[in-house]
């Protein structure tokens, strides 16, 4: 018999650790999504697809700007000492992923903006002719366009990785403590982004490409999930316990049904059929992928908070 009683009862900490609510998973999801969108948009530019009519790489950045702003609002809402938020930008703490994140976000905005003004929609162009001017000047220079594409991919990559690194460096939470978490979040971001762009891409070839890519991402994701769980199982006791949270613990049902099943496997099959022209392309699969990606963030954030080094009961004898 092993009995451990801990008398502490701090708000948000005891008996169950929950300092982070819905804001953080939303932020992480949107951050990952935007990261994926930047990579895809950057790729389209670098691969010359932007010259094709109706390439989504000009719509994506504008949407991404809106999404990342929503994400940052969520993050801001989570802060407990909101008036001090400016403190993030009076320093750079190189050991802190959160500090990196703050600055990366600052980097993301101008890059997305540059990407967006390369080709401005007609209605806006009419209202802001000077913007159109800059955009045209920029898009006229091949090198500048390439640089924007490359920056978009790189900063998207960093943003996507950062969302995972942020959690995995918090050593206290065994369920986050995987060196693969950043890859999972990056690939999941890409997958969600591919699915999302697929929803509004006008060009058939883009849609086909995105669906194919997404299938690749989903397969990769499934493999990463397997590797993470195997990693936990072959690691320390607390990480075994963390793995069990997903295998048969309180998060198992949501994880297997919504994240893996409906969020990865089922859409993967639907899209496999679609790219092989067995069925029509439908928005169902991409929506499932996105919802799966969102739930993944929720599951990971809360399972991580649930996991810990102590296994006490919280009463006073």
């Amino acid at each position, binding site marked *: 018999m092993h009995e451990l009683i*801990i*008398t*502490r009862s701090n708000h948000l*900490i005891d008996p169950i650790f929950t300092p982070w609510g819905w804001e953080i998973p939303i932020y992480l999801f949107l951050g990952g999504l935007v990261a994926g969108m930047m990579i895809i948009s950057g790729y389209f530019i670098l691969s010359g697809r932007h010259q094709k009519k109706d390439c989504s790489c000009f719509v994506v950045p504008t949407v991404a700007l809106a999404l990342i702003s929503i994400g940052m609002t969520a993050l801001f809402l989570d802060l*407990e*000492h909101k008036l001090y938020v400016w403190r993030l930008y009076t320093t750079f703490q190189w050991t802190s992923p959160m500090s990196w994140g703050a600055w990366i976000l600052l980097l993301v905005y101008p890059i997305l903006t540059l990407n967006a003004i390369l080709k401005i929609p007609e209605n806006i162009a009419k209202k802001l002719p000077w913007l159109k001017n800059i955009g045209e000047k920029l898009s006229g220079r091949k090198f500048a366009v390439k640089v924007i594409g490359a920056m978009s991919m790189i900063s998207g990559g960093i943003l996507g990785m950062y969302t995972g690194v942020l959690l995995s*460096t*918090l050593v*206290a939470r065994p369920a986050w403590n995987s060196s693969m978490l950043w890859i999972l979040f990056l690939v999941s971001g890409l997958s969600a982004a591919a699915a999302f762009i697929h929803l509004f891409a006008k060009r058939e070839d883009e849609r086909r490409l995105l669906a194919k890519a997404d299938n690749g991402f989903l397969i990769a994701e499934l493999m990463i999930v397997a590797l993470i769980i195997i990693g936990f199982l072959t690691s320390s006791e607390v990480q075994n316990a963390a793995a069990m949270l997903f295998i048969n613990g309180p998060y198992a049902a949501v994880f297997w049904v919504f994240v893996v099943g409906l969020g990865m496997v089922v859409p993967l099959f639907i899209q496999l059929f679609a790219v092989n022209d067995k069925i029509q392309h439908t928005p169902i699969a991409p929506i499932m992928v996105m919802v799966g990606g969102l739930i993944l963030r929720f599951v990971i954030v809360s399972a991580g908070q649930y996991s810990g080094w102590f296994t006490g009961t919280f009463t006073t004898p």
Partner: protein
Amino acid sequence: MARYGMVIDTKKCVGCQDCVVACKTENQVPHGYSRDWLAYETIGKFPKLNMEIRTERCNHCDNPPCVYCCPTGASHISDGGIVLVEHDKCIGCKACVASCPYDARFVHPEGYVSKCTFCEHRVKEGKDPACVSVCPTHCMYFGDFDDPESEVSKLLQERKYHAIIPEAGTKPHIYYLT
């Protein structure tokens, strides 16, 4: 430079929580929050039982993840290795809260993150921390591990001890004599 820490004699601690009340009054910790707490660990089958009672708080780690993950530098290592939070720099992002394996931190109702300060305001005046100074069993010792002649250093030389979750790699600076 001093390296402060605590040695706690679990053989003497009776789990009375005087250390908890003393911290609350000394540091005016708001109702419903605490910087220190008790752990009662019992192993065995009645009547062959073994019980360890420990008073716990921030371990003022040498390798503090809470400091590393802080985006504003609010969490920092201060003189004598005391890990502190500068209230005016803290944005309340709670990364540090999530990073501490001991769950030693909490969000103060005023928004910033708070935790044990080793009563550095008292230590500066040459006094023991409040919890140490009230403990009726005299089971807590506060001192400088850099000084081999200090009581805390000597206790670690003389007695068997353990720290809490050293596997987390944080290098905690509170040692429990067994």
